[in-house]
């Protein structure tokens, strides 16, 4: 378990969120949503603070975090890639698109690349079934994605970033 030291500010932030929900244990999921919204993920130390604030066992918090796929204990990549695996996308080839992303980035679902740039996740139906198969990168939606386009999509983000670096250099 990697030990992350939380800053005083982070702890205060978590305490404030818990307090907003009156430190009620049945608000656990709402609290987790808010905290993940602020921090991006829910490392163990964060869960410990939440458990203490809501006066429940940390095992219960962990049990809830691991039950719901929306919660993550791993920091997301700078550009989180989500491949829709809804049925509409599946029958239109989402599996092949996912395989290509995994191959190109050499990471598995739920993992981030070593440079922290990309992470891959699957999700169920973003509601753009008319554009199946659909891939989202950050907030941007790519529709009707073919495996052959995967390289371009990744390049769009690696290049834009290296361009920024060039500028700042």
């Amino acid at each position: 378990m990697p030990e992350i030291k939380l800053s005083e500010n982070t702890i205060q932030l978590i305490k404030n969120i818990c307090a907003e929900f009156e430190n009620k244990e049945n608000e656990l999921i709402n609290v987790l949503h808010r905290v993940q919204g602020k921090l991006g993920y829910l490392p163990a130390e964060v869960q410990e603070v939440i458990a203490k604030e809501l006066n429940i066992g940390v095992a219960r918090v962990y049990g809830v975090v691991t039950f719901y796929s929306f919660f993550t204990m791993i920091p997301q990549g700078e550009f989180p890639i989500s491949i829709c695996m809804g049925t509409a996308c599946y029958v239109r080839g989402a599996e092949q698109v996912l395989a290509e992303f995994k191959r190109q980035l050499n990471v598995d679902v739920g993992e981030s690349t070593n440079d922290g740039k990309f992470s891959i996740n699957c999700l169920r139906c973003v509601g753009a079934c008319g554009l199946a198969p659909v891939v989202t990168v950050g907030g941007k939606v790519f529709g009707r994605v073919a495996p052959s386009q995967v390289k371009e999509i990744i390049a769009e983000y690696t290049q834009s970033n290296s361009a920024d670096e060039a500028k700042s250099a």
Partner: protein
Amino acid sequence: MTVLKKQVRIALRNCGVIDPEQIEDAIACDAYFALGKCLTTYSPDEVISEIKTSGLRGRGGGGFPTGLKWEITKNVESDQKYVVCNADEGDPGAFMDRSILEGDPHSVLEAMAICGYCIGANTGLIYIRAEYPLAIQRLKIAIKQAEEYGLLGDDILGSGFDFKIEMRYGAGAFVCGEETALIHSMEGLRGEPTVKPPFPSVSGYLGKPTNVNNVETFANIPVIINKGAKWFSRIGTEKSKGTKVFALAGKINNVGLIEVPMGTTLREVVYEIGGGIVNGKKFKSVQTGGPSGGCLTKDFLDTPIDYDNLVAAGSMMGSGGMIVMDEDDCMVSIAKFYLEFTLEESCGKCNPCRIGNKRLHEILTKITEGNGTVEDIERLKELSDVIKDTSLCGLGQSSPNPVLSTIANFEDEYMAHVKEGKCPAGQCKSLLRYDIVEDLCTGCTLCFRNCPVGAITGERRLPHFIDQSLCIKCGVCFEKCKFDAITLT
């Protein structure tokens, strides 16, 4: 151009018509009029009786009579009751509820208040997927605007009836569509279902009587009140009244959201509304009911769609996903796809679902990889029956449906996999083989240069070869070859 109007928009009546973020737009379309009518003219019992007469059944999948559910909850004595709107739409390929919430949130808020009035609850909770940010935002705006107008809150329309609505968020668990799991999730617990009875109507959120209905069910309520139960019950079939919203997707031209009267046939949906199959391919099957449903063949194209006919045909209404498949879709793979889904979404509480679905999936994988036997198909059937018979909640009780219905309707495809080692749809990669026809290959090296794994070798201007042990069957060479020199068997 004249188009036959096969669709009837009741639940979707205001979607695409009003600005969902302007309550005035909704009011112009009679929003909160049904609530007004109930509060001023009807007693709770009269409203419930009207809903019962309308014949409205739950649109979330089960098809339980809505009026009866309200009546049961009303009849339980308690100091506190709750109305819950189940907006945890989790079926892959279904987006009916999201469209309603994004297009006409007030229809749901109004109906929840009516329900509260009927059962004696003053608090409503909407349990919505966190994956629906736009719907959440619009609901929040709608609640705020309704409160500002006094259409939610204390003493609504001067009637003395108080009703407030709060939001609760799902966090990515399909099983939370099951009402006991949903309630546990709202209580900050793992979304594990519990054995019913007790039903939520008796003991639900925080142990209080709780009426849970789905978004589409609620969206129908104001129309029933405004237009009358008789008007509503004229639409549909004998036992399934009104309309049903479907998310039509898959290999169909007009992918989209449709609302059709109960009793419309699949043929009308697929060919008239859906515009037929993409690229003129052959229709193979329609999957309804999501991971709990089944696959219907062309033999059912003329079956009128309603709750009972779909069950009789080996599928179910479900929440309304409708996925069209063509000749390129392998039905064994489709069954496997749905199993993968249930496997991931099973809560793990009961053994048949936790372990049984895993074993089903393993057997299906074995078949799609060409290692299956005829006995495996029997095994699938036996295990499916036990999982259905013994699982704790609806998820496990219906999870083998895609397997059973594909075996029942497409046994020949299963047999082709296990007996001949062939996937008739050409989808199971392990059963595919790409070869280069020596005589046709010009040695242009295009396939060689495009192969992602270096499985193709050969000298320029001489025939190339595919190393089968390296080939990942991606099909790039097949697509790239300009001389049709690559065969797929």
